[in-house]
């Protein structure tokens, strides 16, 4: 199949980028990234500068891929990361527009590569349980209802790719932040610090320059792991009770 690709090229963080048009011959069995590999091989053959895009596990779990395909983060297939998207979902002669994730808090570093350090800083602000190695009681001394473990797992399955931010009209990071807040708040181990955690994480998120949430739910629709916006509601509850309900000023 013959494809026309319009790809964002930007040499570095400071430079102004622009779209460039490429043509590539792909087969339906290829993954989207393999199609880009082929294109890069082509570019290298002509001694050009290959397109920079980030990727690693190529099995949909590491969360490294960060591109928007025809307006949708990770492309047109639901619950699928770019690396698991295959070319059989495109047609011969299609034009595909490929852009990097766009958000002020995710500056473009080169071509399709963006900087997602803001996510790390949000986790560092409180997305953990303060338990040192060796301090843990026996695993079965903490009983957790199966349903609760399931809800915690659903929230914890976030891969930190940032598609929620990329999809949100406001570039809000609420789904990412709430997934971590909810994961830990569901579990008894995490409840001890829940109040402090949610305050610190929300304030760090605000500092990073993400937009605010306006409940469009585009994040949930585009999340390759199907993280639910119920987590955002949970985070809101946690936050309000931690500020309004607590004795601390």
């Amino acid at each position, binding site marked *: 199949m013959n494809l026309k690709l319009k790809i964002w090229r930007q040499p570095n963080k400071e430079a102004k980028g622009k779209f460039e048009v490429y043509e590539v011959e792909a087969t339906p069995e290829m993954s989207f990234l393999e199609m880009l590999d082929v294109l890069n091989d082509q570019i290298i053959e002509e001694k050009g500068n290959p397109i920079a895009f980030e990727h690693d596990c190529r099995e949909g779990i590491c969360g490294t891929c960060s591109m928007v395909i025809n307006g949708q983060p990770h492309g047109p297939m639901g619950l699928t990361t770019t690396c698991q998207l295959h070319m059989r979902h495109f047609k011969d002669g299609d034009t595909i527009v490929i852009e990097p994730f766009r958000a002020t808090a995710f500056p473009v570093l080169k071509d399709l590569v963006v900087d997602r350090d803001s996510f790390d800083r949000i986790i560092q602000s409180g997305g953990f349980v303060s338990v040192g190695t060796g301090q843990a009681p026996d695993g079965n001394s903490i009983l957790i209802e199966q349903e609760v473990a399931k809800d915690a797992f659903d929230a914890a399955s976030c891969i930190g790719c940032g598609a929620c931010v990329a999809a949100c009209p406001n570039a809000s990071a609420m789904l990412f932040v709430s997934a971590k807040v909810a994961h830990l708040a569901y579990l008894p181990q995490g409840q001890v610090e829940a109040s402090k955690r949610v305050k610190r994480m929300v304030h760090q998120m605000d500092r990073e320059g993400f937009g605010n*949430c306006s409940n469009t739910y585009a994040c949930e629709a585009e999340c390759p792991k199907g993280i639910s916006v119920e987590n955002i509601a949970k985070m809101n509850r946690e936050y309000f009770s931690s500020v309004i309900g607590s004795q601390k000023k």
Partner: protein
Amino acid sequence: MSWITNFLTSSLGKKLIMSLTGLFLIVFLVVHLSGNLQLLYDDNGVAFNSYAHFMTTNGLITFLSYGLYALILLHAIQGMVIAWSNRKGRSVNYKVGNTKSNTFASRHMALLGLLVFFFLAVHMGDFWYKMKFTDQLMLVPVQGMDVEVKDLYARVDAAFAVWWLVAIYILGLIALALHLWHGFQSAFQTLGLNHKKYTPVIKGLGMIYSILIPAGFAVIPLYFFFIK
């Protein structure tokens, strides 16, 4: 008290203000509509005019109405501020927009809100301002009352004979309907009320509300224009 300012200026605090003021306005719309439907009585405005008189002269109502105006302004200004700062969340826009993953209404809340606000300005300029601050309205006696009241009914009748004013009302109400279509359930989500059992009910109610209430309002100008 710094925790309050910290809270109210945080992203979630700002959202909470939008949610609470929005819910208040949702309740107000019901009250407002139930009063205004008296315009449809075929009594030459007796019921409506005495209702209007009561609403503009009763001290408690007047007091509450200023609270209402303040909340409308708060909702509108806060909404604009959030919308403005949200634009800064993405400095470069996508070449290809994404319309698949969310609704038109949810994407354009600020625009719809702005339209509703302009509509509100027209609406209040035409009726509220003229009623409260001018002598343009005729005084009419009302059965059972010992004072003459301003004939707002006649003003409504006159206004809704003008086709373009009716058109503005209809468009304004469509914007309101869309604004509510998203806003109703969104307010609950912001409050943290997302529940496997109850959220579908809230969403259903929101849809019914956002169609019925604006439709109820729309009946009035249409009634005056076409039937009366």
